[in-house]
């Protein structure tokens, strides 16, 4: 059952990795604007496509 201790340590390390990713994301401003990125992805680029063709 000692393996649980090991699993515990591993799972916590992974989870802390995600926590660090979250902190990094928040500090670099990823959560500042929760509107534009979500909408920008939905816009078509009609004109540039027409030019390419």
């Amino acid at each position, binding site marked *: 059952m000692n393996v649980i201790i090991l699993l515990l340590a591993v799972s916590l390390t992974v989870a802390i990795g995600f926590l660090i990713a979250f902190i990094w994301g928040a500090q670099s401003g990823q959560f500042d*604007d929760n509107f*534009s990125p979500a909408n920008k992805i939905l*816009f078509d680029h009609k004109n540039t496509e027409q030019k390419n063709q």
Partner: protein
Amino acid sequence: MSQTILNTTRCFHCNDLCEPADLLVFDSKKFCCSGCKTVYQILNKNTLCDYYTFNDVAGIKVNSSMDTHKFAFLDNPVIAAKFVTFANQQQTAVKFYLPQIHCSSCLWLLENLHKINSAIFFSSVNFPDKEVTVHFNQFKLSVREVAELLASIGYEPHVALDINQASIKKNKVLSRKSIIKIGVAGFCFANIMMLSFPEYLGLEVMAKDGLSVEVFRWFNLFLSLPVLLYSGREFFVNSWFGFKQKMLNIDAPIALALVVTFSRSIYEIVLQTGGGYLDSMSGIIFFMLLGRAFQTKTFADLKFNRDFTSYFPIAVCKVSDTNEEYYLPVNEVKVDDNIRIRNNEVIPVDGILVKGKADIDYSFVTGENETTRVKIGDIIYAGGKQTNGVIDLLVVQPFSQNNFTRLWNNEAFKKEEKNGYSFTGVISNYFAAFVFVIAFAAFTYWINVLPVNAWNAMTAVLIVACPCALLLTTTFTQGFLMNIFSKNGLYLKNANILQTIPFVKHIVFDKTGTLTYPNMSSVKYTGDKLDPHTEKIFAAMFAQSLHPLSKSIARSLNHVDGYTLQNVKEVTGKGLEAWENDVHYKAGSASFVSNADEYKNDSQVWIAVNDIVLGNYAVNNLLRKHIETMIFDLPYPVSVLSGDNSRSEQYLTSLFNRKIDFLFQQSPLDKLHYIGSLQQNSNIVMMVGDGLNDAGALSKSNIGIAVVDNTIQFSPASDGILLASKLPYFYHFIKAAIYSKKLITLTFIISLVYNVFGIYLSVTAQMSPLVAAILMPLSTSSIVLTTLVGSIIIEKKCFNIHHSTNY
């Protein structure tokens, strides 16, 4: 209402209802004004009409008569540099604040500016801050032209002196920090809960083969450190500040509960007697932070404590001796400079009129509704707005010493510390005292009966019965309510104001601009019926005069065909005379028209043809829609203050079907003193106003609400900003605030039930970590759920009125 049924043509661009008279058709699409049509033409030409497909109400109404000089000041490189964020050999980037940004269409259009002008490389939008950064070729395009391009498609950059970049940045850093704090607390809370599972299930007895529950406990302790030291730090800091000022604030009981919980947990873990209450502790911190973040959600585009300087333009057009115009920052204007003010511009300095016709609108400063005619050689005070073409002024006082600045800096206008009425503050103090008494009583009981239990019982009481539940109900209810309010057009500065609203005893309204439309009046004709020809002559006559009353009447007579009279004479202060085909027309004051002085009311304009009096036009302020019913419904004493003269009293009294105290000719200081005198009778006074003349009264009152036509408009410092179109719902907001107080009481009772149960277990020394682990999340979630459901019911009850009453 009948009008809205008849007229359902909506503008293709701005989606406003079109007046049939102004309707324009282009490309088989209908437009309400030439401004909207122009925007459509620009977008159409550049194949940007997708703009209209993303949202139904995307377009922003454009003022078609935009002054071409509006952004001329950006030609001054020093001023333009304030907006430049980056520049090198190839490109320049400028950042503008565009308060009109509101939907994905805005985002799309503003990021496609390069399709309209090829000198623009790209542009990017910061949606929450409503800012656009445009990168462009500085050799082909100027900063001024970028601003004008934005204005031409409906996004006129908002430039004011108070654009305070530093504070925006600070807010951003703060909000990032609070997100991280919540994230850390949530992470640790969830992991501690998980690791406590063996404890909850009593697995310590099964830990035979070397797996000790101790390991889980030490992991928990390790995880709880960042919660307590990083996320929970603000509770300790705040209560320490309060303590230093000899005040017990609401953070103090939380800090105490945290300390007790944490030390008892360490004690148990070190002595291996139990797992402690680390899950409860991190849960409390997590939920409290969450509630607070929700409550302090800021309105990025609203400024409650605006400096008066933001009311003024940032640059002035100076005219040199050789009659050349150039722009310089407003605080660099010196005495004896010649400055040029264009139509609809605000005058930033006191000056003597040297050229042009000055009709100054001082309504924002004095509350006076009508414009003031100024003669050449007379002084014009800062703060007024020119309404009649271009004028030149000789500066007599620099910006920092103008009359207006002095008024603003008047001691009486200084913001006083307001006494909020914190209902929960009082209760939580009683509650804290009550908990201490019980904890102490439990301690003294057990020390005599079974000393082993004494410390356990006392700390358990403090842990379980911490006032967090009460604070949670308040923060969450207020958070929900603030959101509901802002959705419905009332933006409150902070949550404490919500708690003060139910205690209001007297409501004071400003008249001009608040209850009435700022620049509209109602015109009513009484007398003999005029034939169309006579009416046309009079309409032309009024249209040719610049007197405010004439202008109002001309507007109401719909003088559109441009008919001009050759022989019109204006007798200053009396009226107008005209001769057409040997008929003598007269319009003006009663004494001027008929030589009789029995008609005293000077808001009436009498008309006569060949000295036969036909009737009169009564000109009155036009009340905003549904104000009468709104005021009638208010179950409070109501006063109406006005800077105007009292001639409209009779008219106003006849409109309202209830008792109202009218006070006329009130100076800004009079208004302030009036609020003060009401407060002396221990009244909680709410003031609703709009102009700078109300600024003193707004800050003196317990709750000052500024009414604005749109949120970009400058408003005096206030506790809340209300959209003028939502003024009819004013009483609904008050009702909602009263309901929210009831909701807080209800959730408080629920949390009290949990507390009594928890305290019973603690006092009788039966509290176990498992019970605590169930009790804490259960009480928290049921409280949050109750406040959520309650808030939805309040919203339904108070604001779901659009269907029943069609405002």
